[in-house]
């Protein structure tokens, strides 16, 4: 591979050959071999050049001698530099290859829905809310009737309900207490269902506590929906309820817009617009500017530029009457938001089913 030693090639060619050979050097041993081949006392390139000087005519001697010395100097300098480089990468005795992968203790990953839940909880804890959970199996009274949705109410169509095969006695001590407060008695509940919204917990809480109320309820809710890109028969909701002597729609707007900004970022455009729910009056929905198209119109926002994220409103006087609050003396607001929807918008997830497959490759994208 290496060219045989031949000083007749001349100084320039010899130096070029040396640089080629030097470039291929990786280890100390190779470097030593190269040193011997080029500047060794005997049989090296430099030695061969020196022999040439000895045999040269006086005229040539001076020039060849200078070239031989220059070659020697250049080679030695280059070898020294290379030696220094190799020395830096050389491992001291007992050292390990620190570039090998570490033995990482396994850490679990948080579910994105659980992360959103915590974020919402944190926002409202900061605003002084009590965080509650409620039963997932509910009765018709708490889930619908006391929320101003009697049996034949068309708004029930908005929430297709899953019922239990065998009805259950209503849980909680609501009836006796409300009756004791002189409110309308509650009929026995033939229908036991999976709560279709966390609003059922509003009623349970108000039945048992006098105002003021300032609470947040988080948990799973159930609807008779088929699995598709945007629907699952179970999803998670967060519900807020504030009741006091002077709660206003402006308070609701302030609260919800600050929540939306906290969830989606300071620059997020948010709007608060009228809507309808049987248990609030006036009712309002909150939209954010479409995350995908920033308002120019796309399939996600159905070309409207806005994405609805939650429903809300001022607690309907009829609801207050059901739980024995006097609507002439208290007002309140309530809101409900789907956790999945927020997570989908926040992380640009286009298939809600991913949240329920628990594919570790999906979960690993979210931190602790």
């Amino acid at each position: 591979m290496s060219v045989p030693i031949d000083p007749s090639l001349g100084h320039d060619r010899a130096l070029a050959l040396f640089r080629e050979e030097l470039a291929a050097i990786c280890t100390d041993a190779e470097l030593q071999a190269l040193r011997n081949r080029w500047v060794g006392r005997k049989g090296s390139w430099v030695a061969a050049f020196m022999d040439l000087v000895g045999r040269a005519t006086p005229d040539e001697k001076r020039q060849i001698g200078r070239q031989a010395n220059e070659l020697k100097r250049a080679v030695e300098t280059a070898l020294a530099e290379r030696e220094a480089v190799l020395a830096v990468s050389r491992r001291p005795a007992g050292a390990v290859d620190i570039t090998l992968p570490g033995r990482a203790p396994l850490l679990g990953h948080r579910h994105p829905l659980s992360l959103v839940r915590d974020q919402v909880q944190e926002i409202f804890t900061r605003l002084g809310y009590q965080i509650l959970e409620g039963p997932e199996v509910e009765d018709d009274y708490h889930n619908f009737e006391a929320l101003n949705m009697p049996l034949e109410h068309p708004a029930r169509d908005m929430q297709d309900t899953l019922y239990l095969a065998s009805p259950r006695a209503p849980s909680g001590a609501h009836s006796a207490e409300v009756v004791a407060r002189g409110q309308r008695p509650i009929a026995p509940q033939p229908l036991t269902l999976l709560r279709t919204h966390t609003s059922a917990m509003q009623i349970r809480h108000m039945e048992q506590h006098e105002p003021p109320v300032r609470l947040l309820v988080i948990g799973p809710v159930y609807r008779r929906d088929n699995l598709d890109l945007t629907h699952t028969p179970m999803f998670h909701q967060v519900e807020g309820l504030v009741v006091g002597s002077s709660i206003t729609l402006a308070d609701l707007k302030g609260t919800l817009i600050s929540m939306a900004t906290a969830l989606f970022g300071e620059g997020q455009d948010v709007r608060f617009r009228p809507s309808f729910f049987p248990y609030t009056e006036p009712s309002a929905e909150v939209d954010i500017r479409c995350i995908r198209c920033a308002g120019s119109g796309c399939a996600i926002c159905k070309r409207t530029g806005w994405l609805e994220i939650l429903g809300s409103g001022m607690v309907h006087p009829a609801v207050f009457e059901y739980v024995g609050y006097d609507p002439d003396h208290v007002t309140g607001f309530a809101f409900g938001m789907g956790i999945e929807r927020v997570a989908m918008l926040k992380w640009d997830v286009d298939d809600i089913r991913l949240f329920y497959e628990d594919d570790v490759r999906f979960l690993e994208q979210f931190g602790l």
Partner: protein
Amino acid sequence: MKVLLSWIRDFVDVPGTPEEIGERMSLRGLALEGIEHHDNDAVLDFDVTANRPDCLSMMGVAREIATAYSLPLRAEPGAGSAKAEPYISEMLGPITLPITIEDPELCRRYVAAVADVTPGPSPDWMQARLIACGERPISNVVDITNYVLLELGHPMHAFDLARLRGPAIVVRRARPGEMLTTLDGKRRTLDPDILVIADAERASAIGGVMGGADSEVSNDTRQIVFESAWFKPQSVRGTSKRLGLRTEASYRFERGADLTAAGRAMARALSLLEATGAGCRRGPVIDCYPAPYEERHLVMNPASIQRLLGMPVPDPDTERILSSLGFGVRELGGWQASMPEASTPAGQSGHGWHLQVPAWRVDVVRPVDVIEEVGRHYGFEHLPRTFPGIEEPPPPSDPRIARDVRARTGLLAMGFSEAITFGFIETAAAAPFVGDSAPVALANPLSEKFTTLRPSLLPGLVDAVGINRRRGRRDVRLFEIGTRFSPLGETRGAAAAWTGLASPEHWSGGQRDVDFFDIKGVAEQLCALMGVAPQFASTSTSFLVEGRAAELRVGDQRIGVIGQLDSAIAEHRDLPGDDPVYILEINLDLVSALAPPGTRFAKPLPRHPSVVRDVSILIDDSLSAETVRGTIRAASAETLVGVREFDRYQGKGIPEGKVSLSLRLTFQAPDRTLTDIEVQTAMNAIVGALAQQLRAVQR
């Protein structure tokens, strides 16, 4: 509700592009769902909320737009002529058509008119408008009923007069078992909960829902009866649900039609009939209206608006908005305004309004409903952003939340990722986990996959492990914290599943698969974190491998279970049977009830050194470690503070049926440094007891 912009402009001269109108109306309560552009025209699709049947029409939407833009609203062509018409209750003259309402609660008004018609297609302009709004043109007569429905929101129907026996119209409840073939060709069995429009003999239409095929207007029809009626919402809704039949008519009637609109709709239909040359009225309009509409009145004051909205609305704006929406607005003096519901705790001064609610606003019942109208048309964008004041600090949060966070943090730190699975599962998947109690079944499950409320978190987790395995991932550690259901109620549990390697793969080697002691370690850590120290007792359950299953006991309560998933279940859930899956589940509610309450004080660190002694013994391998530990503890003084197995060996050099067990014993006293002699005495007692009681041989 799809509205055609040019049709809207028949009633209000609204400026701007469809997009601008859509955006503005979204802020006024009609949320834009989409826009279709046509030549010089557009269809705006508005989401009309369930409380606003009056907006299920061009006129209704135009009224909202007129209010939102402060523009005048024009009436429909021919409006007003209806009022001049002298209604009579029975038609005399050339045709006799007696009309009887047998159930005036379910049908409060029935307006009818007979017309001579020449069947044919309706004019192009009418067809174009119907198509744009999603209706299929059928014939000139039918198209007129649909046109009026879309324009004024009031459903109408046309019968072929020749097909009505009598001829007569009887509005009555269906007879038990009465049959009717509806316009969609389906033969339906009716019952007395269903209101029908019958002729002298039999039902010819389902009131407010759909007409009958027999009396359908056809090419041979020469005379028709137009119907414009009012049906009770609950009745129409019940009928529509029971028959599984939803129509444009039932959709409007079940939300509440305008009782006063029946006459206007008839007048409009008759004028369209003549204007399009489809036919002309014969005889007068019959109006059966046993109990006329009673006007509804409310009183409201500006203070109540501010109290609820948190912003003042100038009186002229309130008056303009309500008048434009059709309210009769009359100003009241100070004392008159302070009616009970309109009053506010702060300040009764000032004036108020006496309001007459428009007949089409079936949703406006209380003053708060009017405040909503004022608020939404004044604009929620004018609301300041304020925050509710804290009157008293809220009580503490549900303690389950912090507890669940603690369990979650522990499981995450032990390498398990958080899973969320559905609360309902297949009956077959639930069966092995149900135990002694009955499963909680759903009455109306959507599919076979979601029939039973989960009795345990494990079936869902096992399926999640299965999904990961099928997608090529062998090492899976998942946990879930969630609700389990039984006939006794709901409990919160924490469950985990572990399959594949015990520790992540590494170039240095030393990998092995997860085994029983890995999952037991997780259970021990988790329980310690939750404040309980359970006993592990062997158990036998249908979902765990015999001999690799343990239940966790605190006192006489079973708080959880660990073990290797039964391979038949694993295979049944599509998991490879040869890779073991280890699982654990604990009842968090029970654990919190059993964990000792109160503050735990920090223990001072020991002042005197401890002494460690190892002992290796040869014993029968049928003896459990717990027995050995128990024997040691029973034989030692209280200076023994720790016993830990550090080696267990069977194989070469150990006789068959024996095991070599090595234990590390720690001795310590709180008040002194133990002497060698003390420790040796203790060791002698221990070794003696092991030899005597367990026939252990010291090695």
